[in-house]
């Protein structure tokens, strides 16, 4: 990398958990809960990025590709139906090329009233190594593609496969995006320091992402469900002091497998019945946060 690399990216000021101003969620709820289904498209034979391999195996990586294709053929429909059944909307982390390849899935999410933010063009195309013109191109492509397909103007970003450049956040703010899901420093929203405009980091709870649950921590389906319930119970309790945020980041090809979707239902039942959860979408959480904190953090 030719640009200077910084030890401290200067994303935000340190703010200890104790003594913070109270964030209040609507109707006295203590924990804002949002579900982020990753609706993705992975390419069978993607172009090569010199900074990161797309697939661990030579193309075609049949298991890698077909596992993820299970999402669009099978498991999205299971996951989405269960979320709707229990009153949970999605805030979709979208590989925007899915709009072109399999609009059925995108339309289904849109009809359920879900919100979309960009997760790049494909989850096999990474931002590492992009120059500013290239990075602007994928942001503009994302905005235009989602608007054309769903009528929605995207307000947020989760970098494709979590690949960033040091200028990504400034560009997102410049394009009028309101939130990023890429920063994992807090259980409450934080305004990020950007060159222009305003960008809020919304907690995406990467540690309880289903991929982490199943493949980093090797949990069984029931252990993962129990983990989410514990995560929620704690955040709902602490949120009495100042409102917290819990995201449930999902990949349907994982959570929608037949041995996992049944145990997962207990999580949605628990949160829906608890009474302390503000079950909502990412944009609503950012709006409520900003109403209380204004432009500065």
């Amino acid at each position, binding site marked *: 990398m030719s640009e200077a690399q910084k030890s401290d990216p200067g994303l935000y000021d340190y703010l200890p958990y104790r003594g913070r101003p109270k964030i209040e969620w609507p109707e006295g709820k203590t924990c804002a809960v949002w579900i982020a289904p990753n609706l993705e498209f992975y390419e069978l034979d993607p172009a090569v*990025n010199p900074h990161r391999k797309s697939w661990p195996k030579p193309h075609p990586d049949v298991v890698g590709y077909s596992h993820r294709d299970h999402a669009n053929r099978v498991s999205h429909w299971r996951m989405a139906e269960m979320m709707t059944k229990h009153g949970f909307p999605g805030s979709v982390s979208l590989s925007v090329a899915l709009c072109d390849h399999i609009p059925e899935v995108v339309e289904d999410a849109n009809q359920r009233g879900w919100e979309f933010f960009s997760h790049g063009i494909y989850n096999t195309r990474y931002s590492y190594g992009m120059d500013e013109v290239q990075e602007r191109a994928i942001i503009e492509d994302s905005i235009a593609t989602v608007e054309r397909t769903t009528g929605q103007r995207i307000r947020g970003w989760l970098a494709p496969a979590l690949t960033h450049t040091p200028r990504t956040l400034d560009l997102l703010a410049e394009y009028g995006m309101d939130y990023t899901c890429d920063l994992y420093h807090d259980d409450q929203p934080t305004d990020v320091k950007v060159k222009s405009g305003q960008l809020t980091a919304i907690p995406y709870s990467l540690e309880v992402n289903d991929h982490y649950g199943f493949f980093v921590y090797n949990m*069984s389906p029931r252990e993962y469900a129990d983990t989410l319930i514990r995560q929620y119970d704690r955040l709902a309790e602490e949120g009495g002091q100042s409102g917290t945020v819990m995201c449930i980041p999902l990949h349907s090809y994982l959570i929608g497998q037949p041995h996992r979707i*049944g145990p997962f239902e207990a999580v949605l039942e628990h949160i829906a019945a608890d009474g302390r959860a503000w079950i909502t979408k990412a944009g609503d959480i950012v709006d409520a946060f900003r109403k209380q904190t204004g432009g500065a953090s």
Partner: protein
Amino acid sequence: MSLDPSYLEYPRRGRGMDHEHYPYSSLFDRNPVEWPDGKKLMIWPVISLEYFPMVPNDDPFRAPGHMQTAYPDYRHYTAREYGTRIGIYRLLGAFEKVGAKVSVATNSLIAERYPQLVEDIVSAGHEIIAHSTDMNGTIASGMAESDEKALIEGSLASLQKATGIRPRGWLSIARSQSFNTAKLLADAGVEYMCDWANDELPYKFQTDAGAITNIPLNHELSDRQIINVQQHSVDSYAQQMRDAADWLLAETEQYGGRMLPMHLTPYIMGLPYRISSFEELVADFAKRKDIAFARGEKILDSWKAQQ
């Protein structure tokens, strides 16, 4: 710092998949499948019967479960042989107790080395699926097409010679294929492959040599994935299989017949401290009137007749 401009070109970005093998299709939009005898859920056991030469081959890659130490790796060589001497008979026994017929994905070298074992499998009414030659017979892109063709043909011919039956199904080692594999399988007359995990029913897969059926053998529900990779107990494995069966049975009420693949490895599931829990699982499934066990070829024939 910038990427080659082609990195932002997407030549296959358009309606449907980014290849020609199959069109997009949602499992929930298809005509319901009806299985024989009014069964709702077909459980498809596939036992992998593997021979690991003590000299491993890393071209194109080393198979999962292969040798790990400096030569001679007696530890892994013999621990894998435990599967083909003891573990396989425990697994076959679990299924024989309930009268279930299963598929056995067999390295052709097993048939040459252990004819008694293969005779026991075939005479009991189980199906042999071709599973390469031995565990050095891995496939991936970069392999010469002629070498891959010879590998596939060699496996099929050897299994046919040993059993008198040309295998109708194929499972690649680690489900790993090159861009040529499906075409070569179709060309060799193989009717179905088990490598693609993207669905929960059979589907038609197009190749330059005509169509082949893919019957998805869910890798996430294999004993290797759950017990060896994710390090769960056999009791947790059994719980996960029961949860899967319950979920799929509930779906059959609205969407027609479902199938549940059960991929097994003799040296993993066939250990003394695991097998009782597994036998209990099999016996429980066998007691349920809406569940049947089936060989892959039976699922294939039933599904094909309804297309």
